[in-house]
């Protein structure tokens, strides 16, 4: 997002207190997750931005090793050592209920934005941190809202709170939690206790292989009941009843009997349904589906896709859908992010993305699907996905790109609107925007790299 837009949206946020329904539920800004090994640092997710609205399905598509699953795990707080979400990343969870709940539970960690602006001078804050204005999409340190700096994890250095767990609240009158009209929970910097209030409860996840997400020694019903007890406070008969209802809701026939069966007595599709039932047990606002149908047959895949669409419609949840299958993405998504080597290389609504793909990688991916050109040779993308083990000062796709030119080796492309008209269709490629000359286009990418190079 360009600097002007970013500040414009902040102004708008300050101007209106009500009517924030158009804010995204999840706002991912400059997310960077790296794994630190003896040999090298792998930047599995390397500075990505995207938003998901309530009731929207956002697809993330890419080959293996592109960082799709690490993105999901970063949102869930499931990154384990030697991996870490880096400073500078911000994942904002904007559900008002959740913000109030957190403000009640963690008053010391709640920071009012007005306070921040009054107490700190952005330039001074920058002086104490290793951050650069470019990380936040600005050129001048004076312009960067202090809340952005704080949310990105520079609280310690700037002396805003001690420790790095904080909840930020854009507060109307600085009063009680109930008077909060807007704000966000910074998901990437929560403590274990606070994390558990989000994970499972607010954001639930469905994994690829249902057999490994179910415990073989407990009945399916038992496992759903466990989730209900933990998150909903139900117990005994009520929980058992609710578990059976959930199984029925996800389309398992004869649910009352099935509740007492073990995972091995379920077929693959049924197991995935059971896992989805478990995810729904906590009535989450957002469902992350990480390749939920990859292990299933097409006919069963069709059932599960129908089910997820039904759930979304009836419960108005936001869905983040990860897959490598372009066909599935076209079927389920409202908006699509194409990932390559830890970066989002193209982002657009599903229609324009498939009708008019812009990034050479997206083109290559779509062309290599059999079916387009019967009888002919399939077109391929030469080479393989590189391991993103250094901060890129070049385009990571350039070595495989049929359209690469000299600058691709020396300028790192950032997501840019593909032309004047299409604001919400971006591509991280030096060819864009395509309504200006190549030199101008390259110039727009230069020096706009937003990743810090801290290790």
């Amino acid at each position, binding site marked *: 997002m360009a600097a002007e837009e970013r500040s414009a949206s902040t102004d708008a946020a300050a101007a209106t207190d009500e009517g924030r329904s158009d804010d995204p539920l999840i706002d991912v800004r400059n997310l960077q997750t790296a794994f630190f090994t003896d040999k090298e640092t792998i930047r599995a997710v390397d500075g990505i931005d995207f938003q998901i609205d309530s009731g929207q399905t956002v697809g993330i598509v890419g*080959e*293996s090793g592109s960082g799709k699953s690490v993105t999901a795990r970063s949102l869930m707080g499931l990154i384990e050592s030697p991996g870490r979400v880096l400073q500078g990343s911000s994942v904002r969870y904007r559900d008002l209920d959740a913000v109030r709940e957190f403000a009640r539970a963690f008053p010391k960690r709640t920071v009012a934005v007005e306070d921040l602006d009054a107490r700190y001078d952005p330039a001074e804050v920058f002086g104490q941190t290793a951050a650069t204005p470019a990380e936040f999409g600005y050129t001048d340190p004076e312009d960067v809202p202090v809340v952005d700096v704080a949310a990105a994890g520079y609280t310690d250095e700037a002396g805003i709170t001690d420790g790095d767990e904080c909840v930020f609240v854009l507060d109307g009158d600085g009063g009680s939690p109930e008077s909060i009209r807007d704000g966000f929970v910074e998901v990437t910097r929560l403590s274990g206790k606070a994390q558990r209030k989000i994970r499972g409860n607010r954001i639930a996840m469905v994994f690829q292989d249902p057999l490994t997400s179910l415990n073989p020694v407990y009945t399916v019903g038992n496992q759903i009941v466990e989730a209900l007890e933990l998150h909903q406070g139900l117990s005994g008969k009520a929980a058992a009843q609710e578990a059976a209802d959930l199984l*029925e809701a996800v389309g398992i*026939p*004869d*649910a*009352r*009997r099935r509740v*007492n*069966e073990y995972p091995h*007595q379920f*077929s*693959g*599709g*049924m197991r995935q349904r059971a896992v989805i039932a478990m995810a729904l047990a906590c009535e989450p606002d957002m469902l992350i589906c990480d390749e939920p149908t990859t292990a299933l*047959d*097409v*006919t*069963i*895949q*069709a*059932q599960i*896709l*129908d089910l997820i669409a039904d759930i979304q419609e009836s419960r108005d949840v936001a869905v983040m859908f990860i897959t*490598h*299958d*372009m*066909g*599935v*993405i*076209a*079927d389920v*998504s409202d908006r699509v992010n194409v990932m390559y080597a830890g970066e989002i290389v193209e982002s657009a609504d*599903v*229609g324009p993305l*498939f*009708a008019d793909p812009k990034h050479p990688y997206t083109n*290559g*991916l*779509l062309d*290599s*699907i*059999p*079916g387009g050109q*019967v009888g002919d*040779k*399939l*077109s*391929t*993308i030469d080479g*393989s996905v590189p391991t993103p083990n250094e901060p890129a000062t070049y385009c990571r796709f350039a070595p495989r790109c049929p359209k690469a030119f000299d600058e691709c080796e020396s300028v790192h492309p950032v997501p840019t609107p593909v032309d004047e008209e299409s604001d919400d269709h971006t591509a991280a490629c030096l060819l864009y925007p395509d309504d200006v000359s190549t030199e101008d286009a390259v110039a727009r990418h230069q020096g706009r790299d937003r990743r810090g190079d801290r290790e």
Partner: protein
Amino acid sequence: MSQNTVSTTPGAEAETAPDTMVKVRDLKTYYDSGGLFDDRPVKAVDGVSFDIYRGETLGLVGESGCGKTTLGRTLIQLEAATGGEVLFDGTDITSLRGDQLYEWRQNAQMVFQDPDSSLNDRMTIGEIIREPLDVHDWKTPADRRERVKALLDEVGLSSEHYYRYPHQFSGGQRQRIGIARTLSLNPDFIVLDEPVSALDVSVQAEIINLLEDLQDEFDLTYLFIAHDLSVVRHICDRVAVMYLGNIMEIGPTEELFTDPANPYTHALLSAIPKPDPTASRDRITLHGTPPNPRYPPTGCPFSTRCPARIRPDEYEDLSDELWDGINGFREIIRERMRADRSIRERVRERFGMETRFATMDETYDELFGDVAVPDEVDRVLTDVADIASEHDEQDAIDRLNAEFGSICDGVDPNGGAGEIEPEYYEVSDSGRLSYCHRHDEEHRETATVIDDRS
């Protein structure tokens, strides 16, 4: 279901008959459970007949558990056939033993799905590819080394990879190594068992191109087993669609994809998500899962999920929701019949205590709660539910079939006691065959029925 002696060979022995390489006749592969109480075998392949022509790629598609891999393995004698014949150029290989089998095996090889587990991590690439040559004592060791290097070149790797280990290669490269190994003895026939399912789409395209090149160069004949239908459409000349151990439809690829005849082919094709968000989304979603191949349904194997199942005339006008309910009901009863019962359950049942099986009423409400059920249908269904609650599942099924069963469920429309199975009907000039009662003239066309009901 074993009398499928009808040949699935297209066009019989027409004068322009293509050069047949493999003739499969009524092939059956059963797995015995060896259980004390329940000795019904798993009918993985249940009487299939088809031909494979020299130089063609025959696709074999179907859901997991339909028997496609077992069929592929049986064709090259990695599994012993329970019955039937596999004639390779006239030799029935199911009867080969010992040295003869060892000799013959040079002609037929297999590429496996998972390139991670099909290569031995402790052997170098050279040793892996050389192994078949060593086993068959091919020429001198120096010749073998040369041959391996030539093969590495052939599959797009280089001879310097000879001394490396599998973990140093990516998935696509490993699959290339697997392909080089199968080529080492110059086979005529290769079974490709899901060779690209574990690969990313751009890598997948490279392997498919490689397989096509190799086929041209070495005149190979492929049996291509896959569940990804878009890949099959690209690479195969003809396709066989399998369901529960039976071939449901077999014919030329394009024809089968553009104008499927069998209801199962219809459903399978409509379930593929297309990389085009504007494509119509009126896919046929099949209910439930394929039945257990240990207990296949009577009649047509697909009858339990078929979107175009023939309904008895007197009930033709019932609503589709009600039919869905009736079919679901039947499945639940069948399911209960098979469900494992613990000793505790059996004891509880014996003493008339409530078991988890005794909740038929709730199930009944679940299925028919919000559907309008005509009285005469309701009477039958309540009756069936009562029988099922008494744990006489077989009786309940029989009662349900007597009322709502049709030829698809193996019920003889003329009142005969025998079980009726579908036949293969020739559905086009190219000799495409489909295993379905709908092709009989007295029934309506599959496509129109599916349209009506959806």
